[in-house]
């Protein structure tokens, strides 16, 4: 059974028109090509939705073309629930569930067994979610599932493996200042969300070494529980079979202690942006640049028309590759950068981030920035062309079916919706909502959500050369504000250096 396949109605199967086109002369321009319709019906979430006896929603999308089964369990055990004096606890617990042994198996036995079964098992915790996952050969599903549930419900957190992991993390910390891109990423996150929010804060040697095995075990017992879980299953298994296996394993799991108080939705960053020109010194021949400010946030129903207009606006400004303005100007016209563009983040739990990015030889930094910011001003001051609007909208609408391109994609998408609270109607109305966006909408949201006068301009590079600029151009880096040099951080303590 392959339910998702039935949803694809391809007019080309008729074939008649195509046969004709194969003998017709080649059109002079691709716009003269004629296409049959591609009718794509959005899969209905309820056809995939099931519920376990304990209330956990499960999304199941079978596909028997390969002997593989994929299972992901989503749970509210991300960094947002860890106490501030235990930075990194959620992440470490998430990592060590897979690596520290589980149930009857030591870490050595667990790893050997997983590899011998050719089962890919993962565990992980991010800022607002945690997951365990399994990709198994369907013929080995039961022993593989036993491993998955052992690490989910009875992780051993073996001390020697915790020590290895801590040691490796410490070595990774030492590399914090090696790569200019990682410096830029870290400082940008801090500029946008502050240094203490769980989405941007970083562990130090001190915080890492303070985490104990007991901390991990306590955290797991408290937060890794069935309440709030969502499960996705796809691949070579029928829903009935999948549900029976899950029910049996959940029935055997008796979590200890009271249900934890999990703040939901996760808390927003308490940070106010400080616009300005910030520089971090690094002796490299390019400047790595991020320019931007706060983005926007979805409304609970995911239907605010501004958000769809913002998607189109950013696609035209710098998100659509070579069809977007910043990429055209900075890369294609002027040859100043290999990658240049913009992102406009629409967040789920708090506003995302608007960011222009590029990397260019030090001397071109000011010029490339002036070209990029001129495009921000232009999209606020002038309506976009009908042609640009159509290209952006068509691209979103025509690529939409790819969101559902496999059984795994469908099950994961609906499970993610359930987890974050996005209504199914979002997908049903997606193409219509994008189709409604007009030139006026694009300009309106550009004026409302973009403010080129109040940006954080952050760059990593060799200041002396950046300041000198390009002798052939008039733009100067100091046009963008009074430069503030930010110190590099000690990679282990994150205290300012010098």
């Amino acid at each position, binding site marked *: 059974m392959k339910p998702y396949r039935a949803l694809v109605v391809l007019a080309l199967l008729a074939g008649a028109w195509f046969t004709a086109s*194969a003998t017709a002369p080649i059109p002079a321009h691709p716009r003269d*090509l004629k296409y049959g319709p591609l009718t794509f019906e959005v899969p209905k979430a309820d056809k995939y939705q099931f519920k376990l006896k304990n209330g956990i929603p499960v999304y199941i999308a079978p596909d028997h073309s390969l002997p593989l089964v994929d299972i992901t369990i989503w749970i509210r055990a991300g960094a947002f629930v860890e106490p501030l004096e235990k930075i990194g606890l959620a992440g470490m617990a998430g990592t060590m569930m897979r690596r520290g042994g589980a149930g009857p198996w030591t870490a050595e036995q667990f790893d050997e067994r997983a590899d011998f079964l050719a089962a890919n098992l993962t565990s992980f915790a991010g800022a607002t979610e945690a997951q365990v996952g399994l990709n198994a050969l369907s013929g080995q599903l039961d022993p593989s599932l036993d491993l998955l549930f052992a690490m989910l419900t009875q992780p051993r957190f073996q001390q020697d493996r915790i020590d290895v992991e801590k040691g490796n993390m410490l070595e990774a910390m030492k590399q914090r200042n090696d790569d200019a891109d990682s410096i830029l990423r870290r400082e940008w996150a801090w500029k946008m969300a502050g240094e*203490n929010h769980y989405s941007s804060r970083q562990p130090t040697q001190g915080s890492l070494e303070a985490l104990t095995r007991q901390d991990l075990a306590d955290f797991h017992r408290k937060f890794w529980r069935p309440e709030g879980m969502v499960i996705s299953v796809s691949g070579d298994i029928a829903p009935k079979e999948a549900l029976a296996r899950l029910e049996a394993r959940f029935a055997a799991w008796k979590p200890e202690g009271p249900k934890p108080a999990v703040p939901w939705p996760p808390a927003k960053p308490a940070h106010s942006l400080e616009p300005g020109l910030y520089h971090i010194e690094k002796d490299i021949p390019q400047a790595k640049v991020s320019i931007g400010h706060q983005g926007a946030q979805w409304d609970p129903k995911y239907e605010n028309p501004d958000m769809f207009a913002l998607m189109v606006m950013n696609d035209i400004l710098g998100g*659509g590759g070579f069809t977007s303005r910043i990429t055209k100007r900075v890369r294609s016209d002027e040859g100043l950068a290999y990658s240049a563009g913009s992102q406009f983040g629409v967040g789920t739990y708090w506003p995302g981030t608007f960011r222009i990015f590029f990397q260019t030889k030090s001397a071109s930094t000011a010029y490339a920035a002036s070209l990029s910011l001129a495009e921000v001003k232009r999209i606020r001051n002038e309506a976009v062309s009908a042609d640009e609007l159509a290209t952006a909208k*068509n691209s979103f609408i025509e690529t939409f079916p790819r969101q559902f391109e496999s059984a795994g994609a469908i099950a994961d998408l609906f499970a993610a919706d359930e987890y974050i609270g996005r209504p199914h109607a979002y997908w049903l109305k997606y193409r219509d909502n994008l189709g409604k966006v007009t030139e006026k909408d694009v300009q309106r949201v550009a004026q409302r959500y973009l403010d080129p006068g109040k940006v954080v301009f952050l760059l990593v590079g060799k200041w002396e050369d950046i300041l000198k600029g390009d002798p052939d151009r008039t733009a100067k880096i100091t046009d963008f504000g009074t430069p503030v040099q930010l110190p590099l951080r000690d990679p282990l303590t994150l205290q300012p250096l010098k």
Partner: protein
Amino acid sequence: MIQRPCLSPRLVLLALAAVIVPVLPAAQAAPTQAQVPVEVFTLDNGMKFLLVQKPEATTVSAGWVAHVGSSNERPGITGLTHLFEHMMFKGSHTLGTKDITRDLQIIEEQEKLQEKIRRIYDEQRARWRRGEIDDPFAAANRTAPEAELQKQFQALVDEQRSLMIKDEFDKVYTEAGGSSMNAFTNQDMTVYFITVPANKLELWFWMESDRLYNLVLREFYSERDVVTEERRLRTESTPTGKYDELFEALVWQSHPYGWPVIGWPSDLKVISKEQAEEYYRVHYAPNNVTAALVGNFDPKLVKELAAKYFGRASRGAVDPPSVVTMEIPQLAAQKLTAECDCQPETTVTYKTVGFGHKDGFALDVLAGLMNGRTGRLYKSLVLDRKIATSANVRQNSQKWAGTFSFNAETKGEATPDQLEQAWYGELKKIQEEPIPAEELQKVKNQTLGSSFRRLENPFFLLIQLLVFDGLGDWTHVNTWTARTLAVTEADVKRVAREYFAPEKRNIALYYRKAGTASEEVPPELAELPAEMQGMVKNQLKAIRQQVAAISDPAQLQQMLAGMETRKAQAPPQFQKIFPLFQKIIEERLAQLAAAAPAAGGAQ
């Protein structure tokens, strides 16, 4: 985009793709070995097509490989293959301009100016050789005639831009719902790919045949600048890029794999449009190209469209020349020692076998025994000896030759030299001791999984077909599993003895540059005898760990006070050490203080 032949982690997995069904522990219905049903046909002009149908898809992932890589270049034009890849997105006689007649005139005029600039660069290089200028190409050293030529050139660029339909190639695909459009170049091949909605199949034929047979090298010189930025991005601004490039040049003595795919900067400065056109005529002829389509299409229609669109071109006048230079046997071990802003690491590379060689399969199995969380290297170097954070090997069979490389990063006080020696130890075990049957089995079981996993994604399957064809034989996708399955313990031991002789080693040892490490020796320690330095460093470490576990500020204050007392009693040469200890405690106090108000929600 440039891709080293390593492609992706998933392709590396492929290297292990043996299928043994009955070996899995539990009784089960044995899945048969995964086979990709590929339909093949070739046009009269020599262009080959590989088709895989996926009727359930809403898209077609399609692409083609030109059998040309940087190994087809020569000194003076290094980087041309990759630059050409960029040029394939810049339009044609039909796409990209409102006035093709004037556009072509402008390009011709631009070319004349660039030729004059290249003659000036001949003179600039002579001045540089005489020591009169420090850089032949720098703006500061520009002569008046060059400045004038650059000005004239810029005027032509401006005029051309006014006639252009900017990036129209991209626009046509984008508004039609094309996605994942890109390309990559490596030493052996140039690969172009995209995914289009299934009903827009004919657009793919239109667009790709247009750029294959109707190309205009427009904006050649600004694209050369983009590539120079790409070089800065990938090679010059990364922690190890420059040294990796140096190491490649060390490994390959005679073979063209020694120069970088992105090209030497001095070559990029003078590569001409004429050289690019010559390259195009020879290497992009239909007989040097293979296309592949994976997705929802009618194969009969594909054949008709292929003949209609790609059949327009005729076979190239001359067949593309083969790469004839063979790597000369290595006579002595070579070692590169570098300092960078990087984690200390070790690479040991041996030249082994190229694509399709019978020993490639045993070398892959050898890599399988070494790699992964239960592989020998992780167990020994990471878990038991704790001298590395990661350790792995890779057999990389390229078209004309191949390498086997060990790589590991250090942990704690371990040195790159220790990692190098540890690798020799593991290699010796394979050479001299029996390999447990169950261990060999595990490698083959895992490859059973990956033999299916690699087929899950149609786009990834497309890339595999194109890459294997680029290496010399797409049928590898279906034969690799069985041939790897046939590998025995004796085969693994034989290749382990044959390819890893001490004089065949190429060793790269990277050390962290002084001043960039967090654990650099503090100046206060520099005056101490070396043996004391180590002791003090260990004490610093111990105190850091101790302090990190304390959350009570009062306790820390007490420790600080204790330090003062001990400092007063210490011998003079140790007096300077105590502030280091105190600093650690003070940092912990500051950390606790910072955490306290933030917990209340303040920023």
